Structures are given as structure tokens and as C-alpha cells.
């Protein structure tokens, strides 16, 4: 071997940036604290902005070019990685960034194991640190617009509620919420601040007693789902659980239920909602804070059951409604299969009559297009 000094020089000149880059990158990550902020509850396919705030607690050395890689995952499904950049975090200061995500299905998503990384300044070394605390974001069923057919199926010829606030004077009811602008709404009812926030026109709604009320119930039935245990090969290949069509319809039912609930609220129909799965819960506007968000939250985490307690749910809901209230049950099985005949005979004049029961079986093809997305 020859003693070629220039190659020593070159090696030194290459080695130095590598070492310095390594030390700098490691030092840039020390003393960083990470904090996420995101809406607790979103609906499926709604854009979600996750804000990330990184604080540099060091007294020296600003952090540059910090990448934050988040993993969004749901049990038994493929996780998604997303990276967001903070160009600079000054000493004793914080930097913020955000990313946008679309969560496609109902349930609880895990935002976990955030990786804070940098290649600064030369990109020769990749240094990372993992923030192992995971957080969860609840995703409610997707909300859609109801098909015109829904009115006929659910309410028959009787037109319940009102369709828009614009057709009523403001003093006819109490302002209680905003909703998306529809054709025909008066410009005067536009709620500008909310419109600016959501990036779409929103109008104010005024509560007014409807001409009738409905009991909207979800019979959350599904056959037991075998536990998915992917083999090593399947894990490597990213194999996902195969979804039974009935489980797709379960999700559709949840989405239909959520959409109907919102639609009813928009129409100012007096609504009593109930969800029956392994347990049941009935929501009534007069005794529930955040009525609609509570329902959405319940739907987000609801698990279908082989024996949903729909009969108990109906019984409880009936007590809260007028006798002429319509009882609409959205289900993934037929009325016969639900075995609610026992309570059908239990008529009480102070309760909603079961003669007004509408059983919407989503397994029927005709019911699979009641909501449009």
C-alpha cells in the first residue's frame, strides 16, 4: 500500500462532515418535547388537521429541519405514515406544523409512535427519536345526504319537520345550531364566522317544534367476527383482514343512522335516538348535552353484537315519545330475525305505538342507496 497523503486528506474531509453531521443531528433532537392537538371526534372521510407543536427546551442549539413522522393505524389494518416538517425551532421556543388526514372508516384510530427525525445539516446522517406515547382519535360514521326516497320510507306521506331555517322567521324559534347551506336558504341566515371556519357556507338554524316526532333506533347486529391473526408472511406482505359483506353493511347502517340523525336535526324534527348493541343507549335532546356529538361518539366506538338489545332500546325509547311518533329502526337484519314480536303486543297508550314502526333492513338492496356520499 502506498502512503498517498492526498487520499488521507480527502478521507479526513469526508469523514469530518459525517461525524459533525451525526453529532449535530443527535444534538438537534435532544430536549425536544412533542405535543399533538387534533379534534377528538371526526366523521369518516372528513379532513382532519393534526397540529404538532414541538418545543425546544434546550438553552443552546436551535433545531433545524425537524421531520415529524406520525403513524396512523387501526387494529388489523395497514398503518399510514405521514411526515411533517418544521424548518426551525429556536432555542427555548417552539415550532408548529400540521398535516391533513382522511380517516376512511368508523372506529378508533391510533396516532402512535411519532418519530422525530432530522438529517440536518448535510443529509448524510439520519437521526431519530421516537415519541412512544400513543393517542387516539375517534372516527364517527360518514355523514351523507339523504335520498329523497328516505322521506317516503321513513315518514310515509306525512311530512315532518321543516327543511330549512330560511323558510321561517328568525323569531319563530331559538337559534340552536348551524348547518350546511342549501339552495333556497336566505343569505340573512348565513353564519359567517362558522362559514369562515369550515370553509363552506353555513346557515343558522332555529329550533321549532315539528309537527311530529320520531324514534330513530339502530339495531347494531352482526355475526361474530373471527379474530384476525395474520401470519408472519401476511404481516410482511401487509395482508389485511378480509371483510365480510355483512360487516360492510353494518358500517353502512351506522352511517345511515348518523346521516338520518343529522337530517332529522336539520329538519327540526323532535328526535329520540337509540343505539342497541351489546348494551343500549337512548339519547334525547332535552337531557343530553351535545346531543348529536354524543350520538356520533357512541357510533364511533359502538361494536355490533350478535344479540343487540334492540327490544330493550325500543321499550326505553317509547316511553320518551308521543304515542303517534314514528319508530324507525335501522338494522342489518330483518324484523323477523330481530325477534321483537314480544314487545309488539305491548301497547301502552302513553307510549309510542308500535304500529308506527318502520323497520329499515339495510341488507335489502333497495335500502342500500338511501344515503349518498
Amino acid at each position, binding site marked *: 500500500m*502506498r*502512503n*498517498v*497523503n*492526498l487520499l488521507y*486528506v*480527502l478521507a479526513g*474531509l469526508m*469523514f*469530518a*462532515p459525517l461525524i*459533525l453531521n451525526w*453529532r449535530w443531528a443527535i444534538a438537534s*433532537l435532544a430536549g*425536544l*418535547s*412533542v405535543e399533538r392537538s387534533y*379534534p*377528538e*371526534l371526526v366523521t369518516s372521510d372528513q379532513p382532519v388537521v393534526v397540529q404538532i407543536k414541538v418545543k425546544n*427546551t*434546550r438553552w*443552546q442549539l*436551535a433545531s*433545524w429541519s425537524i421531520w415529524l413522522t406520525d403513524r396512523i393505524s387501526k387494529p388489523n389494518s*395497514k*398503518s*399510514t405514515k*405521514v*411526515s*411533517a*416538517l418544521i424548518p426551525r425551532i429556536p432555542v427555548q421556543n417552539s415550532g408548529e*406544523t400540521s398535516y*391533513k*388526514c*382522511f380517516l*376512511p372508516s368508523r372506529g378508533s384510530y391510533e396516532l402512535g409512535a411519532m418519530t422525530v427525525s432530522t*438529517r*440536518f*445539516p*448535510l443529509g*448524510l446522517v439520519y437521526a431519530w*427519536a*421516537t*415519541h412512544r406515547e400513543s393517542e387516539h382519535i375517534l372516527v364517527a360514521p*360518514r355523514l351523507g345526504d339523504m335520498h329523497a326516497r328516505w322521506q317516503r320510507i321513513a315518514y310515509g306521506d306525512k311530512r315532518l319537520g321543516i327543511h330549512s331555517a330560511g323558510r321561517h322567521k328568525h323569531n319563530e324559534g331559538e337559534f*340552536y*345550531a348551524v348547518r*350546511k347551506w342549501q339552495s333556497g336558504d336566505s343569505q340573512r341566515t348565513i353564519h359567517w*364566522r362558522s362559514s369562515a*371556519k369550515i370553509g363552506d357556507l353555513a346557515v343558522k338554524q332555529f329550533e321549532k317544534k315539528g309537527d311530529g316526532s320520531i324514534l330513530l333506533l339502530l339495531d347494531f347486529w352482526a355475526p361474530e367476527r373471527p379474530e384476525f391473526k395474520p401470519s408472519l408472511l401476511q404481516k410482511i406482505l401487509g395482508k389485511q383482514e378480509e371483510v365480510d359483506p355483512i360487516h*360492510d353493511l353494518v*358500517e*353502512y347502517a351506522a352511517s345511515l343512522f348518523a346521516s338520518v340523525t343529522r337530517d332529522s*336535526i336539520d329538519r327540526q324534527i323532535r328526535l329520540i335516538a337509540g343505539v342497541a348493541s351489546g348494551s343500549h343507549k337512548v339519547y334525547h335532546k332535552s337531557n343530553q348535552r*351535545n346531543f*348529536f*356529538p354524543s350520538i356520533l361518539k357512541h357510533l364511533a366506538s359502538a361494536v355490533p353484537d350478535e344479540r343487540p338489545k334492540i327490544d330493550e332500546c325500543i321499550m326505553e325509547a317509547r316511553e320518551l315519545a308521543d304515542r303517534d311518533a314514528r319508530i324507525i329502526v335501522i338494522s342489518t337484519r330483518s324484523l323477523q330475525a330481530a325477534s321483537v314480536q314480544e314487545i309488539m303486543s305491548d301497547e301502552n297508550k302513553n307510549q309510542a305505538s308500535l304500529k308506527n314502526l318502520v323497520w329499515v333492513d339495510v341488507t335489502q338492496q333497495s335500502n*342500500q342507496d338511501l*344515503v349518498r356520499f
Partner: protein
Amino acid sequence: MQRVEVWLRLTMAGVVLLSSFLLANALNNATLGMIALAGITFSLLATDFWKLFQLERFLANLGLLLVAGYSVMRFFDTPNDGMAKLGAVGDLLVYLQVILLFQSKTTRIYWHIWVLSLLQVVVACALSLAFEMSGLLLGYMSLSIITIAFIAIFRDSDVARNETKSIRKKMDQTRSAQRQKTGAQVIAMQQRQSPVAFFDRTNISRAWIRGMLLRVILLTAVGIFFALVVFHSAPRENAAWYGPNFSRLNSVGFSPMIQFGKRGLISPSNKQVMRVSMTDDRGKPYMPTFEPYFRGITLKKYQKNKDGVYEWMWVTSPADTSNAKKKLLSTKAVIDSGAHPEFKNLKRIIQKVNMQPTKEPTVFSMFPAFRIPTTPKDLAFNYSNENLIRTSASDETSKGPFIYELDVPLYLNGDQFNAIPYVDEMGNSNKYRIMLDGGRMRQNTVKPLDGVELGYASAIVKSDLPTLVQKAIDLKANCIDPTNRKMIAFTLNEYLRDSDEFKYTLDFRKVEFDETIDPIEDFFANHKSGHCEYFASALALMLRAVDIPSRVVVGYKGGEPNSVGDFLEIRERDAHAWVECYLRPEDCDEDMRSTGQAGVGGAWYRLDPTPASIEGFASNEENLVNQAGDAIGYAQMLWEDYVLGLDRKKQSIGLFEPNRRILQSNLSLFQNQSVKDLFSGFSQEGGSGAFFFRLGCAGMLVVFMTYYSDRIGTFFGLFRSRLKGVAQVASAVNARPIEIGFYRDMMSVLEDKGLKPARGQTQLEFAQAASAKIGSFSLIEGAEATEIEAADPYAPKTQVDSGNPAPLIQESQDLIQSMTDRFLEIRFGARELKSADQESLGKQVSRLKSVMSKLTFSRTTPKTA
């Protein structure tokens, strides 16, 4: 195009240009540099900025394959030519790079281009680079680091942009696919989709680029310093390899003959021949006040060659020196011989010569010169021609400078000796058993000049030189003492040098030569214009005309003192010819004998008849230009000696040994004699120590500059601490500074509401003042709606909106008081926080933040419950 990409393209062009120039220089192939230059210019304009055309990936790959195939063929076509093989590799690297330049640029392409440029520089460095190229190498490395940084910035912005683009495209496709589906089908499709997420804020601001560049430039400076330390610390095993280029660029254009007949203007070359540094007996740099004569070869035979041109020639062939070489005498041997009593009292200097590569064996030195322990073993004295020679010939491709040290005696006043002792050529069976000046051995066998050598040194064809011979005879006749050879020689020398009859010139354009006569006779009798060779030849022949043996000596005289590096820089323009006349023992005075200039065989006395030589030693004026020139010369010395030529020995002397001595010294560092010796030793070691001392100072300066510039030097602190690794850094990320962090966070929340502690206010006082102030807060209009709308803009109004801020005010006041109490307990009560407490305090801070976000300062009276 992003701003960062413009910068990246420009710096990348610079990197490619520098690397290709370095390679072209190393391969001595200017065409390669021109191809790269044309490629860069054209691609930058046509492909990058004007976007006239771009090579498609397929075409580019095809081109790469063709170029690679062509280069492989060239590589194997030259089986025994290493340089040609390297040339083929170098060509390939440049061609590949040019093709990549014409492609659409991605991060990957930029990396490929950069890696190719690095490979070019590696090849160039393997072949060695001249000093002039060292600047380019440094420039390449600096620009290269900046370019890598730009690639990193570009990648950061490019990755996010491309990912966002592809995700948006995918989402559009999904949405269009959902349009014709029923609600249930859409939901079913969604169940099979993965979450989609993207980041689309990738605007890189100018301030960010500027801030980052500043840090990269600092990093470059630190990196260069770091590289120097690594370079000089890495242990060496072999002698340094200079590469073929060094020999090509630095070979000395020395010729062992004098040939007349050259017409026109002679332009002296500035090519460096050698650097000579001198140190006195105390190890301090010594700069002579005279123009030193560096003796090379002696020419004794004056003859007419076949071409009809008169020339001086060697007595023996220069190649036939193997039998005549002999080890030089040491100073000690001369002193021990006792032949020269004053020799031990003379001033002596150590002359260190760094001679550029040459094919000639002749080396140069002030004379007489003696061996010392550090003198290379392959330096010998050729008794045939009485000159110093290098006996070993190293590999042509690795031939670097020849470095040798010799002991040279001077007069006490610092002047160089005028004579050297005669070395006898016996002419018998013991032909070459002669020593310098009859020393210890066979003093009785030493005889004055005679035999063949006398014949050569006395030969003259007087009929060819009638005017010259007649003048010499006349001058001898008019001499004060015509029997004293020394006196006669002085007279003849003065005639040529001082009579104003002869003119020194290098411009022969207007000189009328008479080519029918001997050129020296023509010079002497007719045109009287010439350079040192004419003057020396004339004097040598004049001396022979009056029966004084003489010879012409060719070597170097003077040189350019370098005040920065304390050395003499000898260039080709310093080549000189002078005369040595033979003085018999009886012609030598006592001073010559006692000082060792003359021996029992007599002496060769130096005479310099060239008029220009009496102007004296031209030292550099202390002006900026000269100092800059000296600095460049010094840098060149450093480059050749300590970059290209750093070997185990230099490393040991210059670095390891001083460090060892520093470690051995005690705490009173600068009082210690050994440390004093160390610092004085820097100069003794011929500048190497001084170099490392300066290097260390420069390094320290860089470190301090870095430390105080925007606190970047923090990572130097990290070097001192134990490297903890990524895993522990991860825990550092998770571990929030709870202990005082919760109080700091609380202060931050309050500060957002304009509540800051006054000067001198204690924590408790501040808590009370803040609570009082919060008492006048009111609800922010629409605060509750804002919170709910974040989750769902269509949600109905909640019952939170009571319009009454009192509960929130009360809660915030309680929280502030509680956290302040806990802080005081921890800060002054030496209490420790348990993890449960930490969690609780963290929640309290969050709660306070949430509550305060709904309150604002109001001038109106707050509502009460």
C-alpha cells in the same frame, strides 16, 4: 422552480467543474476539462433554466450504457499502461456525469452527480495534485459540503411535495370511482382503504436558507480543521507517495554541459529547483547575508563537437559514477584528523535542501560540506568529477523531492568559503581511495594535481583564442606578483568583472556573432556581451593560457529568501556558472589550510567573473506583494512537505514527539525548561513544529469562533460528554421537564393573557396579583361555540354557554394558587415530585390553559353567578 433548487444547480455546477478540472489536471488531459465545462454550461442553460430539452430516462440510461461500454473497451485495450487505464476511468466518470446533467433533476440524480464528482477527485488525489491544484481541492470540498446541504434542503421540500402530489392524485381517483356507487358500496370501499395523510407546507423561506448556509459554512470550517487533525494524526507506515504528476511538474531542468551558440533572448525560468533552509548551531533559522554558491558539477574539457559548436564537457561520462562514489567525510572526522586546527572553531550551519525531482544524479550544496547523522545514506561524493550525487534512483512515478541535510562550515563572520580542498586522483591501482583533503588516511599518498586531470584542467587550444591568450599573458605580466597564482587569478577575474569592457546580457538579438571563430574568442575580442557562461569560460581559458589549471563549475547562486518560511527558494533562473582555479599547496595561505579550505594537495579556488554577481544578495523588500509571494512560497512548501510528503518520520518529529513532550511536562508549563526547549525546537525542526503550532492556534481560533457564533459550538460540548446514543435521546424527547416545567408552562399560559411578574415580585405575590387580575376577566364571545365547532360545526349549542365567567375565574384562581404552592414546595422545600403528582400537575396546566382560553380581560364589571 424553487429558490433552493436554483442555488443547488449553481453550486452543483461548481462542484462538477472543480472536480473535472482536478481530474483533467491529474490526468494531464485538458480535453476532459473542456468537455465537462461545455456539458455544465449547456445543461445549466438549456436543461435547467431554459428547459429547452431534457434527456428521457430511457435515452439517458442508453447513453450511460454506451459510455460505460466504450470506457471498458479502452480500459482493456491498454493492458500494461496504468495511466491509460486511469485515464479511461476518469473519462468514464466525466462522461457519465455529463449525461446525468442533461436529465430531469431529482434528489437521486443530484446525489449521483455528486458521487461521481467525488470519485473524480479520488482519482485525481490518487494521482497527486500540484500545489496550484490544492486551492481547487479546498474549493471543491467547501463547495461540496454546501452542495450536500442544498441537496438535503431540496430533498426535504421535494419529498413532501411529491408525496402530496401522489396522494392528491390517488384521492381524486378514489372520489371519481365513488361517484357512481351506492351508499353501501361507498362505505364498503372505504372499509378497504387505508388512512390517507399528507403534509403540504413545504415553502422554504429565504431566511431559512440563509441561516442554514451560515451554519454549513461554519461546519465546513470546522470540518476542514477536523480533517487536518485527522490527516496529521493518522499513523503512516510507508514513505510518502508523490505520484507521477509531481515528477512531471517539478523536475529540474538541469543540464550537465554548457553549450554556446544560442541566439535571441534568453528568458530565465521561474521553475523551482530547490528550497534551502539553514539553521545555526543553536537551531535557529539562519539566513545568509551573502549570495551562497550551490555547487553542482565541474566541467573541465573544452572541445568542439561534431556540430561545430564549442561546448564544455565532462571528463567522464555522468553515468559512469558508480565506481567513483564515496561516503562523505563527517565533520567529526575532519576535526579528529587534526589537519585543520581552526576547523573546529568555525561557524557551522546545517543546510537542509529540498530538491525537486530530477533524472540527473547531481545534487547541489554549498561547499565544502560534511556528513551529519541525518544525511541520507544515498548521498555520496563523486571523486571523479568532485561533485555530490544521489546514488539511488527511486521509482519514476513515486519520485518526490530529494531531501538532504549537510553540515557546512562558514567563516566566523558568516561568509561562505572561497575554496575547497583538492581531491587527488591517483591514477594508479588505488585509483579511487582518495578522501576529501587528506584526513586520517594516507596523507602521504596525496599528491598535487597531475596526470589526466591536470591535462583536462590545463587543456587549451591557444591558436583558436589569440586575443584572449595574449590578454591573459599581458595581464599576468602586469600583475604585482607574477609568480603568485592566486594573485594572477584575482587579476584576470577583476579584468573581466570590473573593467566595464564586458557587458552582462541575456539578450543576444542585437549581438553580432562571428561564427567562424571560437565563441569565447568572439566574446572576448568582438561583441564582449554575454552571460555567466561566457564570462566563466573566458576566465577559465585565460587562466589556462597562463598555465593555471581551471574548470567551470555549474550550479546555482543566490536564490530568493522567503521571510515567512525562513528558507531560500532556488529557481532555474538562479542557475549560474563560475570558475575554480587550482592552487598548488604552496599557493595556499595559512588561513586556507587552517580552516580546511586547502589540503596537502592544494585547493580549488572559486572565482566569479560575471559582473552581475557583484550586485550583492537581493533580499526582498518588505512590501505586501513580496510578503504575499513569500506566503505563497511557504504554502507551497507546506503542501509539498507536509501534505504530499508527510511520512512517518516527519509525523513523528512534527507531531507525536512534541505532543509527548507536552504530556510529560509538569503543571508549570511555561516555566519548564523542556517546554521552552520544545518551543525553541519548533524552529530547529525545520519549520515542522512551527507549522503544527500554527495549525493548533488556527484550530483553537476556529473552535472559539464557532462556539461564540450563534451557540453552534454546543456540539463540541457533546464531544466531551459520553455519547449517549439514539435510544436515550428518545427518552429525552419523551421526558418533559415536569419539575419546573409545569410552573414555566403555567407562566407561559398567563403570559399569553398579558400577566407577567413585575420586577422583584415573588412567585406568591405574582400568583395573588394574577388571581386578582383574572377576577376582572370576562368570557370570550363565542368561546364555547368555538370549542364545539372544532369537533363538529353542525353540532347544536351546548349548555356550557351560560354566559357566566365566575366558575371559570374561580377555577383558574384555584389552579394558579395550587400550582404556585407546589412550585414553592419543590423549589424551596426540597420536595420531590412523584410521577402521579407530575401527571396531576400536567393536567392542571392543561386545564388552566383550557379555562384561560375562554377568558379575556374586560373593562366592564364581570357577571356574577
